[in-house]
């Protein structure tokens, strides 16, 4: 049984002027101690999906309109506030994109880590503090620095603190929302390595949100490609990297510059992502697709399993035309 299963999740942001369809009928599942990479452009709805799982979509304007999020068989969308609070930080925890703003500037970092331990660990304040010091050691920060405030740390160190906080209660699922985007490249590698190590020690499953296919190749077991609030292609790492079928996935790989070919210009996917307040009918990618057919503009799409475990949401792939 999979640890987390998302079925038909739909999240909209409703403002007075427009309705932004951030996530549209999204299906996903993560198995125990596996890592799923969720890849997509900015604005594809990756972060909203993650916040949806945590039930942290800001309301207003965000509304979870439908679907199911089954965590160990239990629907998180039907859980009461109290139940979801016990899951947050304990069973499911999240690493946010920007470590610079994710920490409270006026609370000592040791206390910030101890807070989550005290909430879920059934322990005294002292015990929570001791465990928070151990956590700091685990992520490679001297425990003496626990009395310092976030502004006394560098970006990479802050992200370590955030990771320590997220892993303090040994969660079953870790959601990492672009954990390395705000860091420079050398620190990125360190942070990723640290996350991988801790994840393997605790047998934690991970939902890794990123737009960096390099990171996906290094860390993930499965990959889901997201476009305009939908999963367009889903499969194992090998299936996606060796046998990408959806035109969008092919475009993503095509836009990575190759070392052995000498080209003057990069090869991006033409056009822009459609306005989430005004999504096109039919396939949402058809305006940018090189393989467009007239049915793509109107036709009903279905996700088809092209080989065991490899799903694609494309009309032409489904008919075997590509």
């Amino acid at each position: 049984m999979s640890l987390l299963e998302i079925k038909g999740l739909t999240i909209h942001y409703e403002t007075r002027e427009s309705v932004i369809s951030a996530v549209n009928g999204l299906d996903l599942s993560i198995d125990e101690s596996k890592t799923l990479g969720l890849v997509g452009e900015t604005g594809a709805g990756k972060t909203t999906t993650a916040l949806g799982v945590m039930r942290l979509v800001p309301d207003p304007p965000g509304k979870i309109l439908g679907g199911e999020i089954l965590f160990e068989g239990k629907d998180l969308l039907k859980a009461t506030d109290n139940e979801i609070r016990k899951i947050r930080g304990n069973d499911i925890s999240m690493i946010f994109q920007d470590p610079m703003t994710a920490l409270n500037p006026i609370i000592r970092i040791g206390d910030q880590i101890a807070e989550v331990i005290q909430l879920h660990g059934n322990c005294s304040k002292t015990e929570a503090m001791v465990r928070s010091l151990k956590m700091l050691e685990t992520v490679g920060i001297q425990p003496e620095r626990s009395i310092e405030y976030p502004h006394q740390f560098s970006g990479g160190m802050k992200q370590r603190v955030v990771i320590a906080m997220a892993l303090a209660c040994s969660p079953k699922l870790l959601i990492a929302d672009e954990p390395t985007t705000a860091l420079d490249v050398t620190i990125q590698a360190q942070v990723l390595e640290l996350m991988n190590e801790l994840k393997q020690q605790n047998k934690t499953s991970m939902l890794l949100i990123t737009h960096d296919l390099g990171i996906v190749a290094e860390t993930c077991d499965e990959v889901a490609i997201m476009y305009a609030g939908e999963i367009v292609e889903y499969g194992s790492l090998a299936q996606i990297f060796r046998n990408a079928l959806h035109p969008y996935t092919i475009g993503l790989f095509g836009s990575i510059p190759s070392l052995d070919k000498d080209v003057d210009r990069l090869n991006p996917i033409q056009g822009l992502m459609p306005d989430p307040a005004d999504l096109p009918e039919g396939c949402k990618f058809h305006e940018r697709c090189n393989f467009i057919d007239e049915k793509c503009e109107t036709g009903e799409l279905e996700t088809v399993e092209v080989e065991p475990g490899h799903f694609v949401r494309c009309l032409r792939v489904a008919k075997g035309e590509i």
Partner: protein
Amino acid sequence: MTKYIIKRILWMIPVLLCVVTIVFTITYFTPGDPVLIILGAGNYTPEAYAKKAAELGLDRSYIGQLTTYIWNLVTKLDLGRSFLTNIPVSNELMVRIPVSFRLSLMGIAVMVSVGLPLGMISALKQYSILDTTLTSISLIIAAMPAFVMAILNLLIFGVILRVLPTTGLDSWRNYILPVVSAAGSGIGVYLRMTRTTMLEVIRQDYIRTARAKGQIERVVIQRHALRNCLIPLVTVIGAFVATVFSGSIIVETIFNITGMGTYLMGGLLGRDYPIINGTVFVICTLVCTVNLCVDIAYAFIDPRVKAQFTSPRKRAKIVKELIEVKGEAS
């Protein structure tokens, strides 16, 4: 920390000297002749005029007068004597400072204790009917100058409803109208400021982090949002002190209270320079002092500032304790 406070107190000296010089210069060059006002226009001899001017020290040059004034102030803390009554300004002020200071501090207290909680509620219940009502009322109040507020209060509660006394400061009931009038627009402005600050803080990422930890909403607001929100709000109190002080000058005049405000008003009308200079000097000193207190309070609210002033020895002690705790547990 002590070093910081001493430094800040020393900094007050040049500020006050500048203020004295500026106010002295302004009164000196303001049209109107105190000698003429004392003698009465038309029925004096040039000799009498010259005698009076010499007596008041007004026959000397601008620089001469200014240096004498500052010299007396610095060496003897002497603010001079009133031109009209010949009573030393400092004697008169000694009686009046407590009255005005009490009035202004109460004004500030009312402003913070009303504006802050209402602003918080407004922010936490954003777009509710309560929020809309509070923000619109606060806008009207904020737009009202102290004198309009004072006259309206006087009219409604003192004259029409006759529930509160309108002059003097004999009982606690006398304080209500002047204090509310002095705090007046401050309440509105402070409420709106609190609301904006709180709204900004609760949208910060670290609030989301606190929720993601599974923290109870009440604690998220109290522990994570409130303190972050208070830091800028304490700082602006310093700026409001000056506003409330100047507001209380007008309020004192309207409610006929013998504070510094009425004294200054009399001095202004009679071109009584020592009164004007002395009162402004004292008000400025008070504003500076309150600001200093606010800044010190700021250091206690914002641990980042406090940490900056923690001595290395104290720091080492905290670290040592931490390690001991760890040793005991393992």
